[in-house]
C-alpha cells in the first residue's frame, strides 16, 4: 500500500470515528472504565509485589554453630558461606550477642530469665540471600548443603512462613491473570460489538468501495485502525485518570502506609505505561479483527 493508500485508510478511519462522535465517545467511556479497573488492579498488584519484595528481603538462613568451634574452623565456614551462589551477605552473631538480644526480647519475663543458667544460646551466622534465591526450593537446597558442614549444629529458615508468603504471591498473581483476562475479553467484546454495529450500518458503503475498485486492504484497514484508535485512546484516558486518582491519594497513602510496615506507593513505570497503551491498541485491533473477516469475505473480492 502506497502513501495515497495510507492517506485513504487514515482519512477513512478518522472520518468514520468523527461521523459517529456520540457513539465513539460512549465506547471510549466504556472501554476506559474497563481499562481503569484493569489498571487499578495492575497498580495494586505492582505495589503489593513491591511490598512483598520488601518482606522478601527479610528471608534469611540462620546457621547455628557448635560451641566447640575453633576460630580457624569458623573462618573456614565463613569462606564456604560466602562462596555459596545464593548468599548475598553474612553476619556473625556471637553467643553473647544472642544472649543480649534474648534477654532484651524477654525482659518482661523475669521468671523465665531467672530459670536460665549461664548462656545456652549458640553463636550463629545470618545469611542474607540474593533476590533471585529467596524461594523455598533454593533455601531447602542451601540448607541441605550447609547442614552437613563440620561445625554446623542446626539450620533455620522459616520454611512454613516462606511457603505462606509464596502462596500469597501466587494467589495475587493468579487473581490478576483471571481478572485481567476477563476484563481483556470484555474490552474485545465492547470494541468488537460497536465496530460490528457500525460495519452493519455501513454495508452499503463497503459495496460502493468494492465497485469503485478499492482493494481489500483499503476496505479492511480502516476498520482495524478504528479498533486500534478506540483501544489506544481508551488506554490513554484510563492511564491519565488513574494517574490523577493516584496522585490525589498519594499524599494520604504516603502518610499512612509506612506505619503499616509497607513502602510508599508508586505509579506505573514508563515501560509499563507504554505496555498498557500497546495492550489497549492490541485489544482494539483484536476486537475489530473478528469483524473485518466477514467484511473482507463479502466485500474485499
Amino acid at each position, binding site marked *: 500500500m502506497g502513501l*495515497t*493508500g495510507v492517506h*485513504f485508510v487514515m482519512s477513512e478511519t478518522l472520518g468514520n470515528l468523527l461521523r459517529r462522535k456520540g457513539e465513539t465517545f460512549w465506547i471510549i467511556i466504556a472501554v476506559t472504565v474497563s481499562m481503569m479497573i484493569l489498571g487499578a488492579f495492575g497498580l495494586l498488584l505492582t505495589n503489593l509485589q513491591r511490598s512483598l519484595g520488601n518482606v522478601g528481603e527479610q528471608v534469611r538462613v540462620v546457621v547455628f554453630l557448635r560451641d566447640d568451634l575453633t576460630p580457624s574452623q569458623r573462618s573456614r565456614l565463613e569462606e564456604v558461606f560466602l562462596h555459596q551462589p545464593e548468599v548475598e551477605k553474612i553476619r556473625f552473631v556471637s553467643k553473647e550477642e544472642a544472649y543480649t538480644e534474648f534477654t532484651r526480647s524477654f525482659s518482661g519475663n523475669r521468671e523465665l530469665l531467672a530459670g536460665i543458667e549461664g548462656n545456652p544460646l549458640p553463636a550463629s551466622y545470618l545469611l542474607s540471600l540474593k533476590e533471585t534465591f529467596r524461594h523455598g526450593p533454593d533455601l531447602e537446597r542451601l540448607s541441605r548443603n550447609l547442614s552437613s558442614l563440620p561445625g554446623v549444629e542446626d539450620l533455620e529458615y522459616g520454611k512454613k512462613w516462606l511457603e505462606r508468603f509464596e502462596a500469597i504471591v501466587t494467589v495475587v498473581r493468579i487473581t490478576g491473570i483471571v481478572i485481567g483476562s476477563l476484563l481483556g475479553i470484555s474490552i474485545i467484546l465492547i470494541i468488537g460489538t460497536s465496530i460490528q454495529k457500525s460495519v452493519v450500518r455501513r454495508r452499503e*458503503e463497503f459495496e460502493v*468501495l468494492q*465497485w469503485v*475498485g478499492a*482493494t481489500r486492504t483499503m476496505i479492511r484497514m480502516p476498520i482495524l485502525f478504528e479498533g486500534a484508535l478506540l483501544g489506544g485512546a481508551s488506554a490513554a484516558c484510563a492511564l491519565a485518570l488513574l494517574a490523577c486518582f493516584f496522585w490525589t491519594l498519594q499524599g494520604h497513602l504516603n502518610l499512612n502506609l509506612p506505619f503499616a510496615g509497607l513502602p510508599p506507593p508508586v505509579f506505573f513505570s514508563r515501560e509499563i505505561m507504554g505496555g498498557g497503551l500497546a495492550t489497549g491498541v492490541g485489544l482494539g485491533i483484536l476486537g475489530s479483527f473478528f469483524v473485518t473477516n466477514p467484511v473482507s469475505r463479502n466485500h474485499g473480492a
Partner: protein
Amino acid sequence: MAKEDFLLPDPHENDNFFPTLEVKRVLLRQKLNSPEIIQMFGVSKSYGPNFAALKEISMGIDRGDFVFLTGPSGSGKTTLLRLLIAAEQPTKGQIIVNGRNISRLQSSSMPDYRRQLGIVFQQGKFLARRTVFDNVAVTLRARGVPNRVIKKKTWETLQWIGLEDKKDAYPLHLSEGERQKVTVARAVIDSPLILVADEPTGNLDENFAEEIYKLFEELNRKGTTILFATHSRTLADRSGKRTIVLRQGQVVES
C-alpha cells in the same frame, strides 16, 4: 501480464479444443486494439442443478459501442451484468474484457479490473453519512488520485451532471433522480472504459430518465463503451442503438 490472462482449458470443453483456441485469438486481437472490448464464449450461469440463469451466451461488443440489453424480468440481464463486473463467475464459458479473461479473475486482481469500469445499479448505493461531493469523489480517493485532482475532477463532474449546487447535501435529502445522478457521476468520474448500467432509469420519472440517458450518450461520444440494461424495449428502439435481447437466459436477438 496478469495470471488470469493465461487461459486454462475450460473443464467443460475438454473434448473440444477450438473454443479455447478462439479465446486465445481474441485475447491477442484485443491486445492489438481489436474493435471488440467485450467477448463472451459459451457463457452459462446456473444456480443449483435446476436453474440456469444464462445458457451458452456468445457475443461481442465493440469498443466505444452503446448497447442496450433488454428482455423481460428474469431473462438474465442482471446475471449477465454481474458476470461482467466480476461479482460472480460463470459456471461455464469464458468472458474476455479488454484483453483480460475475467472468468478466472483472482480476487487480488478484481480492484484493478473494476477500476476500468463504471457501475450503475437501479437501486443506487451510497455513503449515507457523506455529502454528494464525497460520494462522487470516493472513486478517485479509492484509486489513489491526489487531493488537488480529486477536488477539480469532482467539481467538474458535478457541474457536468448538474448537481454542483447540491454538493454539500446528503443523499438522504435528494430526490430519487438526483440520487441516481450521483451514482452516475461516481461511475463516470474516472472516465471508465466500459459503463455497466443495470436499469439505471427504472425508478425515475420520464424527465430524469431522459436526462440520465443523455448523459450516457454524451459519455459514449467521448469513447466510453456503454452496456445499458433495461426491460423497456421502447427506450432501446427509440434510441436506434444496437440492442441485445435476452429471453430465458438466451440471446434471441443481437
